């Protein structure tokens, strides 16, 4: 069992959850009063106890982001959406490059860094969080637990968690067991309404869906068979129709002129974005990464960091013509002040392989000037010596 694939599948569950089937208004739904802790001997109490244990494990996990400012920022978004329920919710940012967020019935909210990286603005992040808050407020997981059909599946998942590893386990336990389409529809609508109430333009939710579909399509185009494994494609064949319906529901709510808060999100992730982009490349999902980086570089042509990682993606993909594409992206990045110094190392590598020694020396020299204590500085210096 390939764990990464398993995690990714879970991520898709939540992605699918956000994007949901055809939208339908959760008629008559109002924000419920705060949820009291259930009695321990009830089934709901058992579910909470289980999630409490998972939460304790999550607190110890090296994959947990321990940046108080970042976590506080994401928690503030959660609170803005959850309103009076805020005191019952704990927000955890988990370092994992997959698109995922989920919320456990005991109030444990997880937001994965791959989701934050993909959001163009705070409103888009709020769209996914709002959907998950929707499941929580409507207590969908309890309904699923009580549903005989899903109970055996849920039990199987619980039994298999140790095999999947701690991080995958958390995803599965907290939100990976699929909600019904009815629940997804309800959570979609609740999410949109929470967004509107919190002052976010609901239309941004549809854009999250659009971007995700673009990435999946790009992966499919690149590999030819993404549809055979993606939960989104495999179980939801009418995604285009859903995209349209989500957009229609968002438009019906209006408030399109609200500020989606792009700068706020960018500021919150500034010190982490580079590390998260490195994580993204390690997924080796080149179609998706290229779609993401294409979007980032198009949105901000002065974004040297995104240009550098676009080059890195081509270099790692190493397909026909990718060396030239990588070189072009690196050269563009190297001319931008926001590019990381590693862009010069990347250029140095290409120049060295092509035997362009003066260019190699210049590029490596710039890298070492910026990062004299780099982990590979000694190796690079040896290349400079051999280059005369």
């Amino acid at each position, binding site marked *: 069992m390939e764990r990464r694939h398993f995690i990714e599948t879970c991520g898709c569950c939540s992605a699918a959850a956000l994007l949901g089937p055809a939208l339908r208004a959760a008629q008559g739904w109002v924000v419920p009063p705060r949820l009291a802790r259930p009695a321990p001997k009830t089934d709901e109490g058992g579910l909470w106890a289980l999630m409490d244990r998972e939460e304790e494990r999550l607190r110890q996990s*090296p994959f947990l982001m321990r940046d108080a400012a970042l976590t506080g920022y994401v928690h503030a978004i959660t609170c803005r959406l959850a309103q009076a329920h805020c005191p019952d919710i704990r927000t955890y940012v988990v370092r994992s490059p997959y698109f995922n967020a989920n919320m456990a019935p005991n109030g444990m909210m997880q937001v994965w860094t791959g989701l934050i990286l993909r959001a163009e603005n705070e409103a888009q992040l709020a769209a996914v969080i709002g959907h998950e808050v929707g499941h929580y407020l409507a207590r969908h997981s309890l309904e699923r637990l009580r549903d005989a059909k899903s109970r055996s599946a849920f039990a199987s998942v619980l039994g298999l968690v140790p095999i999947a590893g701690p*991080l995958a386990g958390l995803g599965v336990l907290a939100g990976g*067991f699929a909600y019904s389409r009815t629940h997804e529809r309800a959570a979609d609508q609740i999410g949109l309404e929470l967004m509107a109430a919190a002052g976010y333009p609901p239309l941004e939710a549809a854009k999250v869906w659009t971007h995700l579909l673009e990435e999946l399509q790009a992966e499919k185009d690149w*590999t030819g068979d993404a549809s055979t494994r993606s939960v989104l494609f495999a179980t939801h064949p009418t995604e285009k129709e859903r995209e349209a319906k989500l957009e229609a529901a968002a438009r019906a709510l209006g408030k399109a002129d609200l500020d989606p808060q792009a700068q706020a999100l960018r500021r919150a992730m500034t010190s982490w974005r580079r590390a998260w982009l490195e994580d993204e490349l*390690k997924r*080796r999902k080149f179609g998706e990464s290229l779609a993401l980086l294409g979007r980032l570089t198009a949105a901000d042509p002065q974004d040297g960091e995104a240009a550098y990682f676009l080059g890195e993606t081509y270099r790692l993909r190493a397909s026909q013509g990718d060396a030239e594409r990588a070189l072009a992206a690196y050269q563009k990045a190297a001319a931008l002040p926001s590019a990381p110094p590693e862009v010069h190392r990347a250029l140095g590598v290409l120049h*060295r392989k092509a035997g362009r020694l003066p260019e190699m020396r210049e590029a490596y020299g710039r890298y070492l000037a910026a990062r004299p204590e780099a982990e*590979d500085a000694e*190796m690079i210096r040896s290349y400079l010596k051999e280059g005369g």
Partner: protein
Amino acid sequence: MNPKVLLLTLLVVLVGCTKPATWVGLAPGEVVVHERLAVRIDGAWSRLDGLQEPKHDVWTSDGTPLDQLHFHTGIAEGESLVVVKDRPADKPIPRFRKDMQAQDVVELYESFASRDGSVFKLEKLAPARFADEDGFRFEFSRVRKSDEVRMRGVGYGAIHHGELFLMVFEAPRIHYFAKHLPRVEAIAQSAHLREKA
């Protein structure tokens, strides 16, 4: 993932292990790994028998959860570090190319070491002699995904006539890495190439 599919996959994986791998103790003295890399050992190493990998060997001293020594011997252009079966098409197999530089080789190893989602970080990369070649030595840390144990590792690599020779040791950061490091360094220093028969 559908839990039933997961269960079935697990079952297939378990049933598929028809020939159980066994550990065979190695005698002190010279050991030639896959007829290509000769090293001198001090004993107390066991080799995983039944791996069925023509260019990959796994050794351990205290058991694989506590330390692992990997050898990749004579990896040629276009080959992967380990034999990969039934990989989905959207997970291209990282392959060795003979024009790779040290950094590229470390990245190749990283893709192998982080395929389960482990977090790998290069700590140091420097030139070093290995297997009669001007090669490189690298150090890394890794948070092992399966149990979230923090690992440390050291590797030596060299490219000889377009073939990659790589030796990587990894153990938990606490106690076991330091315990075996001098022995591993001695093995690396003792390594000599054997040309293809």
